[in-house]
């Protein structure tokens, strides 16, 4: 992984969520707070390994741990997570809209079309020399 300190907060969030185990932990925490022990249970990994994942999520601002409580339950900072999800979803939706327009173009094309257009370079409004 890249040096965390050199990376902006947004990249840390993306990077944190790119790992499947951490996504799983986040999904688990969306049901409610949980302790490290509880979080480690479904995985075949040590509590230390889960703690490492939590540290990445914490550095990214996605989860917090209450210092005062003895059990130190892990809490999902849902606001950050929701914003991220919305953000990626918006990007996905833009791609999907673009490809729906492509669906329509494909339907309008003849079936026996060549994969490439005639090879004349296309200059509609080339820059004036």
């Amino acid at each position, binding site marked *: 992984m890249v040096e965390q300190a050199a*990376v902006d907060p947004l990249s840390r969030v993306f990077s944190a969520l790119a790992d499947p185990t951490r996504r799983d932990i986040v999904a688990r925490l969306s049901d409610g707070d949980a302790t490290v022990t509880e979080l480690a249970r479904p995985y075949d990994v040590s509590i230390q390994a889960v703690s490492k994942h939590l540290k990445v999520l914490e550095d990214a601002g996605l989860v917090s741990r209450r210092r005062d409580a003895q059990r130190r339950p892990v809490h999902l900072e849902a606001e950050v997570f929701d914003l991220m999800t919305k*953000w990626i979803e918006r*990007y996905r939706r833009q791609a999907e809209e673009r490809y729906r327009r*492509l669906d329509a173009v494909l*339907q309008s094309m003849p079936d026996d079309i060549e994969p490439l257009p005639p090879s004349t370079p296309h200059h509609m409004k080339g820059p004036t020399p």
Partner: protein
Amino acid sequence: MSTNTPGTTSTREATIVVDDKVPAVRIIREFDAPPEKVFRAHTDPELFAQWCGPRSLTTRIDEWDCRTGGSWRYASIEGGEEYAFFGSFHEVRPSEVIVQTFTYVGMPDAVALERLELEDLGNGRTRLVSMSLVDSFEGRDAFVASGMEVGVQEGYQKLDELLATGI
């Protein structure tokens, strides 16, 4: 490039994969058309202009030489605003692969490397995998935030502010 998989998510709707190893984004989508048609819709400037931008934008193709070593340039026009993009076609392999670069004229130092792959699914269907690799994670995240078209949007700033509050 990445071992990330979109899991069991249906690829009939566009799927996004945000890589954590390299600053890349992949879009996966299936089409009810054979690879030749999907390829032609990417390589024919008149067809490409019909779908590449949102309906609110007009796409004006200024230059288009879709072959290995060729170049392209187009402008997206919305109201009085004009955003121009340009790049080179590095590899054009009919019905299979297009490798090209992508630059927004407003950020000439930032170049995205794009790879489009088409997979023939049979029965007149095609899976498209579009990969965009940029030169930094910051650039990639701005790319996702902007929907590739118009620079950084308010959502980016909002999230930055939220994250800067030191949660």
